[in-house]
């Protein structure tokens, strides 16, 4: 916002697969040190977008559009495997949701961390890499990093493993860090520590953070800006506090109402009705044109059968034919 360098710029990103468009027209820009949350129910395309950024889409899915990363000459969309593997882990890194399975069960922790250094030639030699790994483990606040380096993943708790995954992601000081639900699988007490660790680390390295979560409280704690995704589209975007306190998209409103973010509910009468959002996220293949949320939206009308345009006002925007009226603006 302050004219800092743009680390990542995503324009018109589509993810296509099996004859369906799974993510449509995603736009995103991250500046250095910026922390952005991507929220939505599971199945809305958050994780696919993140995987598309790293070029790790599952087989059969393809991305189109444009993804530009600072310090990289070429577009990440359509880049070859050789080019992408030189970027992954070095300029853009990722922390995955499931710490229990994200680590190789048959390899010691130290080697898995050290490998991240050695792949990109940041540290040469086995011993040096091992030492760097232990140091890094200490930086992610793991107790007895030397012992942990010699352990296997199954000997660590979930929180410890997630710290290891974070350490691996941070090892090459990436420009962009993508975290996909990094705290979801953790105990509540551990969640807060992990969040703190992530934000501190990003601050320390001045990296941009894209933080994927379905937990609004987590998003509100960790990030400044938020993107709300539904049915493969970003339906609303803006500063976290503004979007969550005065949602304009009915879906965002529903999310907020369903969550425990206490002070945000301006209409107690509607809250009881929308504690849960009726219906379920439509399956990927079923998405026709028009607003994807219209099948669950209380204010849907015939106009919703065509795609709503993105309307940007100031630092926030929404894609909806019937945005929630901002009558009660402060």
């Amino acid at each position, binding site marked *: 916002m302050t004219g800092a360098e743009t680390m990542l710029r995503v324009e018109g990103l589509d993810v296509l697969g099996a004859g369906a468009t799974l993510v449509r027209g995603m736009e995103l820009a991250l500046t250095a040190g910026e922390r952005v949350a991507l929220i939505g129910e599971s199945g809305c395309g958050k994780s696919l977008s993140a995987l598309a950024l790293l070029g790790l889409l599952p087989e059969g899915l393809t991305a189109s559009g444009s993804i530009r990363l600072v310090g990289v000459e070429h577009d990440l969309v359509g880049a070859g495997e050789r080019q992408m*593997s*030189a970027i992954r*882990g*070095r300029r853009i890194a990722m922390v995955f949701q499931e710490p229990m*399975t994200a680590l190789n069960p048959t390899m010691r922790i130290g080697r898995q961390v050290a*490998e*991240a250094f050695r792949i990109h030639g940041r540290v040469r030699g086995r011993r040096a890499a091992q030492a760097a790994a232990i140091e890094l483990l200490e930086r992610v606040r793991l107790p007895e990093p030397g012992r942990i380096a010699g352990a296997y993943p199954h000997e660590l708790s979930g929180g410890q493993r997630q710290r290891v995954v974070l350490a691996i992601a941070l090892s090459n000081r990436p420009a962009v860090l993508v975290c996909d639900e990094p705290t979801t699988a953790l105990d509540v007490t551990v969640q807060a520590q992990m969040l703190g660790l992530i934000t501190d680390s990003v601050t320390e390295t001045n990296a941009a953070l894209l933080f994927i979560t379905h937990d609004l409280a987590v998003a509100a704690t960790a990030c400044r800006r938020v993107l709300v995704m539904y049915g493969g589209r970003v339906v609303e975007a803006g500063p976290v506090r503004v979007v969550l306190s005065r949602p304009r998209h009915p879906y965002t409103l529903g999310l907020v109402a369903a969550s425990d973010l206490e002070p945000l509910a301006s209409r107690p009468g509607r809250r009881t009705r929308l504690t849960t959002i009726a219906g379920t996220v439509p399956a990927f293949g079923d998405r026709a044109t028009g607003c994807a949320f219209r099948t669950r939206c209380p204010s849907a009308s015939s106009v919703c059968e065509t795609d709503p345009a993105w309307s940007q006002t100031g630092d926030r925007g929404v894609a909806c034919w019937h945005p929630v009226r901002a009558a009660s603006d402060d």
Partner: protein
Amino acid sequence: MLARVLLRTGVFLAGVFVASIVIFTVLRVLPGDPAQVALGVDATPEGLAQARAEFGTDRPLPTQYLSWAEGLLHGDFGRSYLSRSAIGPQIADRLQVTGWLVASSIVVALLLAVPLATFAAMWHRTGRGALLAGLSQVGVAVPAFIAGVLLVDLFAVRLRWLPSGGWVAPDKDPAGFIRRLILPVLSLGLIQGAVLSRYIRSAVLDVLDQDYLRTARAKGLRPYQAMVRHGLRNVGIPVVTVLGLQVASLLVSGIVVERVFVIPGLGSLLLDSVANRDLLVLQDVVMVLVFAVLTINFLVDVAYAALDPRLRRSS
């Protein structure tokens, strides 16, 4: 780890014991008197009685079992009722032959299966992958002995490149040994390689789905590097189990292939002893083969723990 190995050892020993009783019981209900078989037609009653006493087949069955089992424990396999020669040295010779055959075949099968399966899995949505998978299906469908018969006809009889069969010891004539080993090992190894490649392929596909492989690629490893550094060991865990079963099935298909290639291994000894009703030899050979299979299963169990750190400190 130690407790696990101890438990497994106990199960293994119990298995060997039960197997020996099963083998003894099944084979002793044999109709026909070993003495009669040994002495041939119109043997005299005195001769038969003398032979029975010599063989010990006139004693009660439990006594016979105990003396047999006790002998085995001391490495004494007894003497053949027919050839009157000690069975132990014979089995040792034959075991060596079969050992070479099976070990070389496993190596060939692995050399074939690991790359084949890895590529088939990594290309599994492409035409190349389908071709490899199809090839291995065809390989599985051709029994080893048929492959053997066809290989002999082509490479030995028509092209004259290799001998059609027989055996020489490796220390007597190393070149001849290898030349004679090639065709039988190919017929066993190709087929077992095809079978193995299907298991490895599905193990690789399982591993490809794993999160840690994605983590490895997110670090910046290329797909092949990620597979080699992080996948193979994990593929190894289910594959070792299958490999154990494969060795067992190799021992058995080896019996038929030994017949095709006139190889004097345990298989030929088994078939000869069946045809001749050379009871004690049959009993010993079956026991040795079953013992081998049980040992392999036991080793697989232990190897499993060695490969998978999760099993090491669990108990």
